[in-house]
C-alpha cells in the first residue's frame, strides 16, 4: 500500500538489510569454514595460505562419515535422548513454571532458589556421584543420560516458563475461573496455548543443550558403546592415517549433525514469534 517512498525510508531499509547481512555473516562464517574444510582434501587443508574455497571440492569426508555405522547409530541415539529430555523437561517444567508463576503459596522463593542451585556445580563435580546413583538404580545408558540431562535442562525450563507465565495477565485466569474452570483446566486451555512461543523457544534451547552434551555421555557409555551420542562418536573418530587427526571428517560430521537442527528451527520458527498476546489479551 506504499504510495510514495520517502528518502528516509529508503535509507532505513538499506541500513536494515545491511544489518541483516552483517548479522548473517557473523553468525555463519565459522560454520562456512567448517563446510569449506569438510570439502577440502587433506593436502589442501594444511596448505598455507588457506584457500577460502576449495580448489577441487571433494565429498570423501562426507562419504566416509555417512558410511560409518557407529556415527549413523549415534545420530539415532542422540535424537532419541535429546527429544526425550526436551519433552520431559517441557511437561515437568510447565507444571512447575505455572505453579511458580501464577499461584500463591508458601515456599515459592526457596523453591526457585533450590531449583536454580542445581545448575551451580560444575558438571565434573557431580559426575562421580551421579554415576554411583545410576549404578544403584541399575539403569542402562540411554535412560540414564535422559535422566541426568534433566540436571541442566530442567532448572532452565522451569525458570524461563515461570517468567513467561508470570507475564501473562491474571485477568485471563480469573475469567477462566469465573467460567467455572478448575486450575488445571485454566492451565491446559488458556495458559498453555498462550505460552506456545515460550515452550517452543525453551524446547529448542534445551534440545540443543542435550544434543551437545559430552561429559556425561562419554562417562555413561564407556561400558555401552552402541549407546554413544554424536559428540562422543565424533570425539572418538580415528583417522585413516595413524595418529593423524581426521579434521576434515570431524568438520563433515559437524555439518551433518547441524543440518537437522537447522531444519528443526525452520519448522518451528513460525511458532517462536506467533503474535502472542496481541490478539488474545485484547478486550
Amino acid at each position, binding site marked *: 500500500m506504499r504510495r510514495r517512498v520517502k528518502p528516509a525510508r529508503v535509507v532505513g531499509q538499506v541500513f536494515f538489510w545491511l*544489518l541483516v547481512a552483517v548479522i548473517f555473516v557473523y553468525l555463519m562464517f565459522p560454520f562456512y569454514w567448517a563446510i569449506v574444510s569438510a570439502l577440502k582434501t587433506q593436502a589442501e587443508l594444511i596448505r598455507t595460505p588457506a584457500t577460502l574455497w576449495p580448489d577441487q571440492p571433494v565429498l570423501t569426508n562426507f562419504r566416509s562419515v555417512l558410511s560409518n555405522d557407529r556415527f549413523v547409530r549415534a545420530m539415532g541415539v542422540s535424537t532419541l535422548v535429546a527429544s526425550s529430555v526436551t519433552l520431559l523437561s517441557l511437561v515437568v517444567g510447565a507444571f512447575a513454571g505455572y505453579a511458580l508463576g501464577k*499461584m500463591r503459596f508458601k515456599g515459592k522463593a526457596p523453591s526457585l532458589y533450590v531449583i536454580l542451585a542445581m545448575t551451580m556445580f560444575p558438571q565434573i563435580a557431580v559426575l562421580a556421584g551421579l554415576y554411583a*546413583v545410576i549404578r544403584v538404580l541399575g539403569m542402562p545408558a540411554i535412560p540414564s543420560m535422559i535422566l541426568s540431562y534433566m540436571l541442566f535442562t530442567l532448572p532452565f525450563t522451569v525458570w524461563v516458563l515461570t517468567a513467561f507465565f508470570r507475564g501473562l495477565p491474571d485477568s485471563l485466569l480469573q475469567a477462566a475461573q469465573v467460567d467455572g474452570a478448575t486450575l488445571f483446566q485454566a492451565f491446559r486451555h488458556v495458559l498453555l496455548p498462550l505460552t506456545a512461543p515460550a515452550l517452543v523457544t525453551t524446547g529448542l534451547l534445551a534440545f540443543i543443550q542435550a544434543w551437545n552434551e*559430552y561429559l556425561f555421555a562419554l562417562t555413561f557409555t564407556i561400558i555401552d558403546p552402541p549407546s554413544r551420542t554424536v559428540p562422543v562418536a565424533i570425539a572418538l573418530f580415528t583417522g585413516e592415517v595413524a595418529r593423524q587427526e581426521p579434521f576434515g571428517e570431524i568438520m563433515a560430521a559437524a555439518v551433518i549433525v547441524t543440518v537437522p537442527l537447522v531444519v528443526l528451527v525452520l519448522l518451528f*520458527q513460525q511458532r517462536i514469534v506467533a503474535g502472542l498476546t496481541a490478539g488474545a489479551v485484547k478486550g
Partner: protein
Amino acid sequence: MENANGLEAAASVTPTPKRRPPSRLVRVEQRTAWLLLSPTFVILAVIALYPFAQVVYSSFTNAKFASSTETRFVGLDNYRALFAFTIKELPPRLDEDGEPVLRDGQVQYESWVSVLPRQPQRFRQVFQFSLLGKRYVLGAVSAEFIRAVWDTVVFTVVAVFFETVLGMIIALTLAGNFPGRGLMRAAMLVPWAVITVVSARIWEWMLQPTRAGLFNTVGSYLGLSEGRTDFFGNPTLQLPSMIMMDVWKTTPFMALLLLAGLATIPSDIYEAAKVDGAGPLRRFFRITVPLLRPTLAVALIFRTLDSLRVFDIFQVVLGNQRYSMASFAQDMLVSRRDLGMSSAASMVIFVIIFVFALIYIRMLRVDTR
C-alpha cells in the same frame, strides 16, 4: 491482581489470638501448587541429592580418585590450600658492586622463586605489582586456582556483556516481518547448534598461528598482521580469543530468548506510544526494556551461570596452559587424582556462582514472591 493479593493476605494470617483457618480456596491452591512442583523436585532429588552431598563431604577429606589409600577427614585443609596467599617484596637485582642492575633504564628485580616460601607448602607467583616505588609479588599455594577464578570472572563479565548487547541487536532486527526471516532465524541458531567440542575445534583451526588459519590468512591479506599471530600461545590474546569464541557460540541463546520475550509485548502498546509521539529510542527504553526485563533477567542468569562453569573450550583449546575454574577442578581430579581438592574447588565455584545469582536477582528485581 487485587484478587490475588487478597488471597495472599488470607493465606499468611498473622498470629492473632483467634487464628482464622485459611479459606478452602487458598488451601486448594497451595496443594495444587505443590502437586505441580512435585515432579520437578522428585527428579532433581533423585539425580542431585547424593552427588551434591558427596561433593560437600569430599571437600573436607583427603580423598583420592580411583585409589585405595585410606580417606581421612582433614577439616578445612583443602580450602586453606586453595586460598593460602602471601605478599612479599621483591628486592632489586644487584650487581657485584651492590648497584641495582638496569636494563633499558628499568630496574631489574630478583625472581619470585627466591622470596616466596617453599616450606611447608610451596608458594608460586600469581602476579607482580608496584606500589610506592617498590615491587611486590603475590604468591599462592594454588596459584593456578587464583588465576583461574580471576580469569573466569573476567571471561564471564566481558563475554556476557557482549552476548547481551549482540543478542539484543539480533533479536530486535529479526523481530519484525521481512522476507527471509525464517531463514535468518534458522541461521541465528546455527552457532548454538554446533556441538561445543566441535566448535572449539573449528575456532582452533581458524585461529591457527600460521596462514593455514582463516584469521591469519585474512589478516595478512588486509595487512593487519604478518600471518603468524599466535592467538592461543600469547598470554595476552588467550582470554580475548576465548571470549570471542564464547560470544559467537552463545549469543543465539540470548537472542532467541529475547526474541520470544519481544513476542509477548503487545504491539498495540507500541502503536499507542507512536501516536503519542515517542521516538524509537524512547520506545526502546520506556517500553521494550521494562517489559523485557523478566526475560532478560532469566537469560542473563543462565548465561552467567553457564559461563562461570565454562569448561569445554578451555579444556579443548588451552589444555593445562591456562585454566577456567571448572577445568581446574577437572585437572585436579583427572591429572592429580585429588578428589578432595577438586571437590573443594567445586564448592568455591558453587559459592561464587551463588553470589552472582543473588546479585542478579536483587539488581534485576526478579520477582520471587
